[in-house]
């Protein structure tokens, strides 16, 4: 078998930097950032107001900022779980087909680079852009927490908030790759955007209903089996994987994410917090599922792009 000549990553930095530069001035990106900051800011403010009265009583004040809501404003976590997939899709839905539409693909690929570098560079650019946005948001939350509550976060809270940041980034990357994959399949960016959004809505709204129906249908009348099946089927949805992971990270008293029998709870001190390591063990399967889905989506996108006819 012939080995590749030169580095497989030749030109990666050039594409990566260009993509980052594009995102920095992109109106789409600016609108999304404003939307995230506004909505997250509102929920943070409400949460901070609620938490002020509990200062000193709760050792996980910072983490509560992410999860506490007050009608009519949902929690920061709810906003993020809604807006992050949108951000991912918004960055990915025209990643490749825009190059076809602008007729730039032939020009770029005739430069001394391998074809797959374009895909790597675009994904890397998007990940970096999303990582920067989420990091800014993460720092903003921690800063606000200290400002509003006047209590510095503990090391464990920082570690948990960071784990939440990593999981959120993976969730965003997953939806970016969905958008990018559709941008390879469909030549029209409107179609790829629509299909990606439809898939996101399907997993967020319809899949929980469908998984329940399927669990009832195939649960065999046993309520425990039905509940277990519903959990398994429900976790096919990245939305559920994400919300469960976030819950386990941000709420240290979460002891299980699946179905638990009363007999299994014997001896447990209800309401006590799990150590950080134990919470991470709880979400490890979710984390692995995220990574596996991301790798799978990228592999599909890679194969589709490599087989794609580059002429217009």
């Amino acid at each position, binding site marked *: 078998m012939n080995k590749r000549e030169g580095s497989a990553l*030749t030109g990666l930095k*050039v594409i990566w930097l260009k993509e980052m530069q594009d995102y920095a001035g992109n109106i789409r990106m600016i609108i999304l950032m404003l939307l995230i900051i506004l909505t997250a800011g509102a929920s943070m403010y409400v949460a901070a107001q609620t938490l002020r009265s509990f200062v000193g009583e709760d050792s996980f004040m910072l983490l509560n900022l992410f999860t506490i809501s007050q009608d009519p404003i949902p929690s920061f976590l709810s906003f993020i779980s809604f807006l992050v997939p949108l951000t991912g899709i918004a960055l990915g839905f025209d990643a490749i087909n825009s190059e076809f539409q602008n007729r730039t693909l*032939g020009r770029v690929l*005739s*430069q*001394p680079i391998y*074809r797959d570098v374009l895909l790597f560079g675009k994904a890397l650019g998007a990940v970096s852009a999303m990582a920067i946005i989420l990091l800014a948001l993460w720092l903003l939350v921690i800063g606000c927490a200290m400002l509003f509550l006047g209590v510095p976060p503990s090391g464990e809270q920082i570690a948990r908030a960071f784990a939440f940041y990593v999981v959120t980034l993976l969730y965003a990357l997953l939806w970016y790759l969905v958008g990018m994959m559709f941008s390879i399949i469909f030549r029209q960016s409107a179609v790829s955007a629509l299909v990606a959004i439809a898939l996101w809505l399907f997993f967020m709204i319809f899949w929980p209903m469908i998984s329940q129906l399927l669990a009832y249908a195939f649960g065999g009348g046993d309520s425990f089996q039905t509940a277990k099946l519903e959990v398994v089927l429900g976790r096919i949805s990245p939305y559920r994987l994400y919300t469960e992971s976030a819950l386990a990270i941000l709420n240290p008293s979460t002891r299980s994410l699946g179905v638990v029998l009363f007999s299994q709870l014997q001896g447990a001190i209800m309401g006590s917090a799990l150590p950080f390591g134990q919470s991470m063990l709880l979400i490890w399967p979710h984390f692995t599922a995220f990574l596996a889905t991301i790798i799978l989506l990228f592999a599909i996108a890679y194969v589709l792009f490599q087989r794609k006819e580059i002429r217009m």
Partner: protein
Amino acid sequence: MGNEIVLSVSHLSKQYRKGVKAVDDLSFSLKEGEIFGLLGPNGSGKTTTILMLLGLLESTEGTVEVLGHNPFRTPLVVKRQVGYMPDAIGFYEYMTAYENLDYTARFLGLDANEREKRIKASIAKMRLTDRMHDKVKTYSHGMKRRLGLAELLVKEPRIAILDEPTQGLDPQSIREFLSLITSLRDSEGMTFLLSSHQLDEVQSVCDRVGLFSRGKLISFGSVDALGEEHFGKEVLIDLQAEGKDDLELLLKKQKGVIGVDRQGDNHYLVTASEDIRPILAQQVFSAGCNLTSLEMKKHSLNEIYQLAYKEASNE
């Protein structure tokens, strides 16, 4: 034109999964400093051939060698020395011309100074200096074509492949563009491969042409050689003379004249077995007429293509 073969194609074929043969048993070679025209109607396999030359598409059969390398196995070496301007050229419209060229120049691994020097020089050659910091979305189609050629020059390639370079250009811009290509060949010693469906436009600059039909090369050589191959040695002489109503009979009587076609009151197209212009001139003067024009006309590439296509279809 040098003698070194810089590009050779041997029995190249490309068959798509649906069984469509886009390119069928294609063989030709290019010498250094040559301008070669790959000509044929749309859908005849020209772009597919070009993509295989660049290593952007794998052939089903046959071999391609560009500057001694297989473009599919060692694409980076080939792409570093071959410039390509696609038929549907596009730029990032929100970026300036300079930024667009700088982006692709970065792939060449040049340092910032060298990039700037090359980009400015290329843009100047294409007479776009005063617009180089304008966004490409403000450029006309012709300017984008010139920018495409500027981008190609930044690479300083040994071979330039231009796919339908005159497409969408007005006649004046086509003349300008083709003269640019000729001057680049003369000044930089570049080898050009032009693909076009506008046969007569590019024939003026091509040293040799390959006529394409349904993925096959149906004729190959210089335009003169192809004319001779398909029309024999007969020549067309365009003659215009004033002073007598009808010269047709007189012209027909001359030795070597095969036929005379009257084009207008004083305008005749003479088909002869050889170049008999001196004899015709003498006869026109003897008849007391004023000779206003006498020139040899070549068979147009379009005529040659039509005949070659007919002959290929009959085989």
